[in-house]
């Protein structure tokens, strides 16, 4: 029989105003197992905890029931308090008489009655509690960063600088991500590649960083501290060790001129050869062969690149390679893309080459871009005189079919940036921005936008564009409304730039599934806590960096990347992790070996082994379930799937739950 102490908290008047605390104490005093019951103003306070510790010692308590606020609030506190007095922390149960009683009921008598019942249930449960011990699992001191954009780069650098080894897996042939496509960055207007390229080089040269470019995560197993990850290194068809990055192969590839292979990096605004580096500053400076388009791979003929390569690095026989690496922590920095605009026929994106997205505009304005930085219309290569920007294309759009319900956050600022850069280069360009709201929270952000209006006289009109109609003369007719002046507007434009909504990289869903990291309706990764744990996934050991978690600009991405790195470092700095002791347990004498539990276990924590058992004096070899305690997260799915009742959950056992049911229904 347990010796249970019951402690009822007043929580000032939070509980005591609606629950007759003294009466609760009197009524639970004679419950089975209870040897001590008392109340106190604030149980969680230093003095309250002291009271508990004293009682444990004086009455030699073996179990505690604290009637107080939600266990989500102070269960940890009271467990620590029990431990201080030498009691196993898992011999504590909390009856939630604040959030689930005093705060929601008005009638004192009713609330008191309910508080007593909740206390009884907790007492009944504690009677069946057993001391549990947290397990320990070792930590592999190596981190994986999925995604090699600015978020992944920054996270990797910060972790590596702290002295831990980091691997970056990037599916494209080069790291750099979206930022490498940009021209200038707001609000300072410094050149994106000028600030990014040194970081890319640093990553490449860092002794603690290993780069897996043109690679993808294939399989993830394990758990916090001990992940096993299969990485598929796709065949580049170029031996990275031999390649000097001279670029001869790309220059001589016959498909460079006649191939019509749109460059992904330049968003299809120009073509690339079949053997290519995405951009000049690519890291690593090793080209890849796009086997789907390469003549050699299609017909077996050509082979120009292999012949021309001075270092004989081209290797047509190269195969995909799978490497398995152990990691302690994984950071998801898979970034974003913009949405497909097919559903927005009204903006004529697919009809006119002069309707472009903002990323395409970045490429058009970039000195290394397809036009050498000269802004021109893709239709006739003339410089546009009247440019219309349309904001919120697909953002803040409730129709799931077409767009995204959220604000993409960065469009207002980059549009102001684009407008000013254009005005800087070609001052007599007329720029009109149609917006729903201009959103510029951030240091020096509103000032930046106001500069576009006040200094550059960019014409901001509140009102969304209804339609863009390509005209026979090559111009675009923009139909919009000026809501503040209450007028419909029909204006001609030479170019229309769409601020297309951003969305998480489409590949993230697959990755999140592999990691069992939760994801929201918009495919953004979910934080463990939106406010207090913003860079952690609810799945232990998985961290979030950059746009994968939600829309954000470069400075925010870099700060979040650093924050994620700190969390990773904090994890890797530990030699061992404590594991949750509330794990599943298999009673080998009851187990049928039917594998039902293994089928429902989300963590692969259950295996089957042939073990020797003694059952009623009979020695037998049986196939029974074995729970890997380090993998088990304690969800209990196996317990309710188990047909024989062999599987049970520590801390929430079948008997504990039924006894709570009984106590409540008494």
């Amino acid at each position, binding site marked *: 029989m347990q010796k249970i102490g019951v402690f009822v908290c007043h929580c000032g008047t939070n509980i005591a105003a609606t629950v007759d605390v003294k009466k609760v104490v009197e009524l639970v005093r004679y419950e089975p197992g209870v040897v001590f019951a008392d109340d106190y103003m604030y149980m969680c306070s230093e003095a309250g905890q002291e009271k508990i510790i004293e009682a444990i010692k004086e009455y030699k308590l073996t179990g505690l029931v604290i009637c107080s606020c939600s266990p989500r609030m102070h269960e940890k506190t009271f467990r620590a308090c029990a431990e201080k007095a030498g009691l196993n922390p898992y011999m504590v149960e909390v009856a939630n008489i604040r959030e689930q009683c005093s705060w929601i009921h008005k009638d004192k008598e009713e609330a008191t009655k309910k508080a007593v019942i909740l206390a009884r249930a907790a007492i009944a449960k504690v009677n069946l509690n057993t001391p549990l011990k947290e397990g320990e699992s070792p930590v592999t001191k190596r981190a994986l960063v999925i995604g090699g954009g600015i978020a992944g780069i920054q996270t990797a650098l910060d972790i590596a600088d702290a002295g831990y080894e980091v691997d970056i897996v990037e599916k494209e042939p080069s790291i750099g991500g979206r930022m490498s496509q940009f021209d200038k960055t707001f609000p300072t207007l410094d050149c994106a590649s000028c600030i990014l390229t040194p970081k890319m080089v640093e990553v490449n040269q860092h002794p603690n960083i290993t780069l897996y470019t043109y690679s993808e995560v294939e399989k993830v197993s394990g758990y916090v501290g001990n992940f096993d990850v299969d990485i598929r290194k796709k065949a580049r068809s170029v031996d990275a060790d031999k390649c000097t990055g001279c670029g001869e192969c790309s220059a001589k590839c016959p498909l460079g001129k006649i191939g019509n292979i749109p460059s992904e990096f330049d968003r299809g605004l120009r073509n690339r050869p079949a053997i290519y580096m995405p951009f000049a500053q690519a890291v690593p400076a090793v080209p890849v062969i796009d086997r789907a388009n390469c003549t050699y791979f299609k017909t077996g003929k050509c082979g120009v690149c292999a012949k021309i390569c001075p270092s004989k690095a081209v290797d047509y026989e190269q195969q995909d390679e799978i490497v398995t690496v152990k990691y302690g922590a994984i950071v998801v920095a898979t970034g974003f893309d913009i949405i497909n605009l097919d559903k927005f026929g009204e903006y004529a994106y697919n009809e006119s080459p002069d309707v472009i997205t903002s990323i395409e505009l970045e490429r058009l304005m970039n000195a290394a871009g397809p036009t050498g930085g000269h802004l021109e219309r893709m239709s006739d290569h003339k410089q546009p005189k009247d440019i219309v920007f349309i904001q919120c294309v697909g953002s803040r759009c409730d129709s799931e079919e077409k767009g995204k319900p959220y604000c993409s956050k960065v469009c207002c600022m980059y549009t102001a940036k684009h407008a000013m850069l254009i005005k800087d280069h070609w001052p007599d360009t007329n720029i009109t921005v149609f917006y729903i709201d201009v959103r510029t929270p951030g240091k020096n952000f509103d000032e930046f936008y106001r500069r576009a*209006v*006040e200094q550059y*006289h960019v*014409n901001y009109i509140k009102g969304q564009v209804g339609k863009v109609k390509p005209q026979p003369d090559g111009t675009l007719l923009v139909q919009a409304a*000026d809501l*503040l002046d209450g007028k419909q507007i029909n204006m001609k434009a030479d170019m229309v730039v769409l601020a297309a909504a951003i969305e998480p990289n489409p590949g993230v869903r697959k990755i999140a599934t592999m990691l069992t990291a939760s994801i929201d309706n918009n495919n953004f990764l979910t934080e463990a806590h939106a406010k207090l744990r913003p860079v952690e996934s609810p799945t232990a050991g998985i961290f979030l960096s950059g746009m994968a978690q939600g829309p954000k600009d470069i400075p925010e991405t870099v700060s979040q990347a650093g924050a994620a790195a700190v969390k990773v470092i904090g994890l890797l700095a530990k030699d061992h992790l404590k594991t949750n002791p509330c794990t599943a347990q298999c009673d080998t004498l009851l187990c049928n070996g039917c594998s039902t539990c293994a089928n429902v276990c989300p963590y692969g924590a259950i295996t089957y082994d042939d073990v020797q058992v003694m059952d009623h004096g009979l020695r037998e070899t049986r196939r029974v379930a074995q729970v890997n305690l380090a993998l088990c997260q304690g969800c209990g799915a196996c317990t309710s799937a188990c047909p024989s009742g062999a599987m049970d959950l520590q801390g929430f056992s079948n008997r504990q739950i039924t006894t709570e049911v009984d106590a409540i229904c008494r």
Partner: protein
Amino acid sequence: MTELEKKIELIKEISGSDPYKCMRCGKCTASCPAYSEMDIKPHQFASYIIRGDLDELVESKAAWKCLGCFACIERCPRDVQPGKLVDATRQIVARQRGGDYLQPEEVPELLTEDLPQQLLVSAFRRYRR
């Protein structure tokens, strides 16, 4: 510089305020005692001027219904002061008409009992500069 641009520059010069600074917050319109009389609301003045729709502004009732009470000028968070903008517009019109918009002889005809003396004085001061 086009004729229009010259006019806008002139408005900026006369009023001493910059229409581009307007954020369309609407505080002026919210403060305007003549709101119900205005066909173009004070917050729209700046955009009319930026767009160059001066003729429309001049021909509106609003340009001439402004009492010059200075509420909008006092309260504008961006120092755009729509009252000054519309006043500048009126001045441009007055200047176009030649120096003397109002002759002293015309005054008795315009007088009504409700007309405050002060208005006459200020009208002379304003339109006969």
